[in-house]
């Protein structure tokens, strides 16, 4: 039996002195797993914040079901949250967890196959009842049948310990049950020397209107911490030293929040109000939520009646002179594409964020994929060129939101930002930028009404952005082919030909501003990996590992998918073999093969999960070994 934990109320918020041994480790990957009603995402989020405060580099990956509450205790109802943290810089949420915290049998069954052999399993033994085992489809109790013999198992009766800690508080059964994730969190805080203060403060502010729940959650957290410290089952705890991170002020940030912050910052830099028209869709809705809470910055958010109205409102706001953005996921882009074509024809600046998810159709709403590149490039009728950017990291969801806004306004064009479910939901430490050092995005409106022509272009081939309210600049634009310079309706064959080429050239001109492509990895590399989007972490980590083993491999990562960087062809030609990993069936590789006529090797993955480092490594090794 575990010892009675110290009364949590006597605990100070500072770390208690422990007599147990401390083992130093470089990196740890923990996966929290439980029922979708168990508060797993919340627990993971708190652990993440405290890990950032502890000075580690980190990367997270939430994995939750599409159903809000799948039947309790079942396999589809399992929600997971993985965090990888380290004393050196890391790039991915970790290939395989070292530690699995399983709140019920279903969570254990779903996640055990991913755990490293010899890994640590912490289970809530109270949840391993015959009905729960049956719901998870387990014929025998894995805690008793030897199926966990390859792992280190720590059995914790989480539910009854939480119940014991909260005795006498007059809470309902459900309320007590909802506190057990905090007990587990406290236990994990002790095990990995995380500070409890931030979570205590978070509980204070989150539950201030329900004092009983506030007290119960604090008590559960501290009781879990004290239990781990005093119980005989933990003989040591782990220390992950601070990572050598560039100096500055940091926060944790996921891709969707980063995008929202990026657009608000872009509007500030452009000295224009921000308009965001959107329709709720997983996994993009958080951008709408975040921006809706930024009204104090003059942000106008419009929850439209559908995806088409969302992009339509964005085009209207752009005509009115706002920095106008719409966000969605793949199925939403299908609906928006006709209107995006209108913005191509009217040459109005809008930004479309596509937080890609598994497709086709409804597909896998909560899982990640990169299969909308060709849709962004070619999903509209006619020759309909536009710019496409793809952030590689959560932090780039911020910086590329600004870059997309800049390109849209400078070149008077729609710009796609291809994020994905992984970037949207995973979080990383982010160095908070100094706004005063960011360049202005201001574009000057035309000043002379006498010489004004709606489709008269500047050196970049951009047309002027004259907005209603500017006397003498009244003009009409529309979806019918425009006459060069005047913008009037024109059905003239030569004019159509000229305008198609001008629109194409205008987008191609953006390449002049793309900085030289950075090659990462061995100087003498024979194999080059070309990545785009959220595969950056796995690719870069794989190259680092391979270089450490002396393998001649390097990588480049494309942020600009249209136009492509002008030095790309030369770089591709420098290597014997080129591998293009993508979370689709080879969309970028198709574009690159046709553009550069090179026999590129495609590596694809369409499991709704990001690439693992070892998957990239294995492919490179196979190519180096001459197997393909």
């Amino acid at each position: 039996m575990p010892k009675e934990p110290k009364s949590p109320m006597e605990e100070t918020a500072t770390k208690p002195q422990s007599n147990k041994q401390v083992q130093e480790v470089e990196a740890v990957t923990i996966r929290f797993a439980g029922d979708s009603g168990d508060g797993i995402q919340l627990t993971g989020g708190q652990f993440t914040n405290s890990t950032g405060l502890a000075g580690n580099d980190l990367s997270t990956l939430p994995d939750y079901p599409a159903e809000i509450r799948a039947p309790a205790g079942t396999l589809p109802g399992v929600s997971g949250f993985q965090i990888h943290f380290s004393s050196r810089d890391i790039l991915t949420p970790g290939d395989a967890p070292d530690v699995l915290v399983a709140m019920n049998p279903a969570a254990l069954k779903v996640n055990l196959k991913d755990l490293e052999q010899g890994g640590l399993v912490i289970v809530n033994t109270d949840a391993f009842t015959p009905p729960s085992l049956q719901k998870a489809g387990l014929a025998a109790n894995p805690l008793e049948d030897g199926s966990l013999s390859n792992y280190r198992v720590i059995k914790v009766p989480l539910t009854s310990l939480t119940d014991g800690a909260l005795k006498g508080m007059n809470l309902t059964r459900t309320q007590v049950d909802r506190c057990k994730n905090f007990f587990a969190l406290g236990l994990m805080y002790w095990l990995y020397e995380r500070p409890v203060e931030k979570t205590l403060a978070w509980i204070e502010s989150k539950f201030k209107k329900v004092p009983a729940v506030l007290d119960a959650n604090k008590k559960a957290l501290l009781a879990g911490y004290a239990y781990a410290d005093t119980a005989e089952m933990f003989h040591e705890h782990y220390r992950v030293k601070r990572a050598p991170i560039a100096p500055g002020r940091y926060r944790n940030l996921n891709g969707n929040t980063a995008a929202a912050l990026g657009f608000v910052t872009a509007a500030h830099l452009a000295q224009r109000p921000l308009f965001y028209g959107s329709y709720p869709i997983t996994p993009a809705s958080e951008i709408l939520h975040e921006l809706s809470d930024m009204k104090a910055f003059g942000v106008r958010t419009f929850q439209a009646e559908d995806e088409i109205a969302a992009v339509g409102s964005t085009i209207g706001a752009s005509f009115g002179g706002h920095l106008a953005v719409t966000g969605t996921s793949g199925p939403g882009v299908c609906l928006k594409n006709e209107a995006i074509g209108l913005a191509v024809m009217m040459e109005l600046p809008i930004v479309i964020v596509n937080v890609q998810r598994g497709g086709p159709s409804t597909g896998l709403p909560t899982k990640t994929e990169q299969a909308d590149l060709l849709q962004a490039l070619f999903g509209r009728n006619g020759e309909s060129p536009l710019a496409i950017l793809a952030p590689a990291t959560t932090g780039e969801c911020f910086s590329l939101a600004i870059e997309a806004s800049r390109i849209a306004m400078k070149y008077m064009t729609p710009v796609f930002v291809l994020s994905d479910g992984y970037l949207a939901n995973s979080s990383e430490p982010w160095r908070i930028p100094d706004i005063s050092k960011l360049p202005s995005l201001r574009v000057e409106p035309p000043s002379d009404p006498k010489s004004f022509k709606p489709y008269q272009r500047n050196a970049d081939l951009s047309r002027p952005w004259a907005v209603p309210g500017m006397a003498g600049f009244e003009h009409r634009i529309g979806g019918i082919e425009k006459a060069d310079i005047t913008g009037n309706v024109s059905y003239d064959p030569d004019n159509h030909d000229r305008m198609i080429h001008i629109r194409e050239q205008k987008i191609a001109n953006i390449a002049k501003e793309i900085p030289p492509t950075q090659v990462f990895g061995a100087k003498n590399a024979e194999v080059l990996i070309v990545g785009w989007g959220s595969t950056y972490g796995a690719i870069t980590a794989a190259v680092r590992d391979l270089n450490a083993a002396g393998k001649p491999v390097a990588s480049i990562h494309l942020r600009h998918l249209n136009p492509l960087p002008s030095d790309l062809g030369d770089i591709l030609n420098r290597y014997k073999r080129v591998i293009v990993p993508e979370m689709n069936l080879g969309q970028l590789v198709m574009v690159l093969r046709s553009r550069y006529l090179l026999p590129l090797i495609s590596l694809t993955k369409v499991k709704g999960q990001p690439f693992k480092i070892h998957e990239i490594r294995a492919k490179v090794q196979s190519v180096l070994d001459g197997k393909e």
Partner: protein
Amino acid sequence: MPEITANPAPLTRKDFVSDQWVRWCPGCGDFAILAQVQNVIPTLGIPREKFVFVSGIGCSSRFPYYMNTFGMHTIHGRAMTIATGLKCARPDLQVWVVTGDGDALSIGGNHFLHTLRRNTDVKVLLFNNRIYGLTKGQASPTSELGKKSKSSPMGTIDRPINPVRFALASEATFVARSIDTDVEHQRSILARAAQHKGSAFIEILQNCIVFNDGAWSPVEDRATRDDNALKLEHGKPLIFGKNRDKGIRMKGLSPEVVTFEPGKPPADLIVHDEQASPAFAYMLSEMEKPPFPHPVGVFRCVVEPTYDQRMDEQIEQARKARAPDLAALLAGPETWEVQ
């Protein structure tokens, strides 16, 4: 935002005529509507650069090209979405949508509903000719049941929609109907709509001379129109007929037509009330065919806060509650320093 310059000279119709050749079929009802809009808007005291005309696709949707204002000729069915975004971004503008029965009620039906129920301050002119003209003569959602057309050689089998009724059911705050040939009436209704704060909807019965000529002849033709059209006037009894000898009164829960000696209307005729329950306006909208007249005029006009105004208010409220500090926003609730 660029400086907004007031146009000091008084505006006339000419100021709103663009340099584009008007490309509608000779005799099209759209010409009359264009002329009346160009007549009415100079009288509103609003600078020309503050007007924006937004249209979708269809014959009516060419309208913005002929107005010397800011304008957008957009895509099929979506004009209202673009107008909504524009008005929300720029509440200082007066935004008009020009649409047709196919554009607004078929492909754009969803946006029509939501624009009106939000009460966004946009003016919607729906030219209803009960046919697809631009695509050369298919039945539209307002075509009468059994309508023979290129796409329905044996007659349509879908029940038509009544635009006024759709607008009322969407809880529009201003709902009216007018007729292309009645320029006086059109002018007064257009002026009312322009002055209304909130979504203003006008169905204009419009003749397509090529593909559906005579669709509205009972209410358009000089010989028959007075017997078939009922002009709604706020506070006045519902009287119609060439001799002003017919009226509407209630019989139980339904209206009925009553004939009387001219100049001596019975005391129990219904008196029109634009602010009455929408159920009343809905009842009026159900009068379409003889013996009932076809009502024109303002069915309903009530004042409610607009969507764009509420959006503005929330932004003001948020600004007062929390001074915008971008650096603090980027930092978020929890940060740590790395030395």
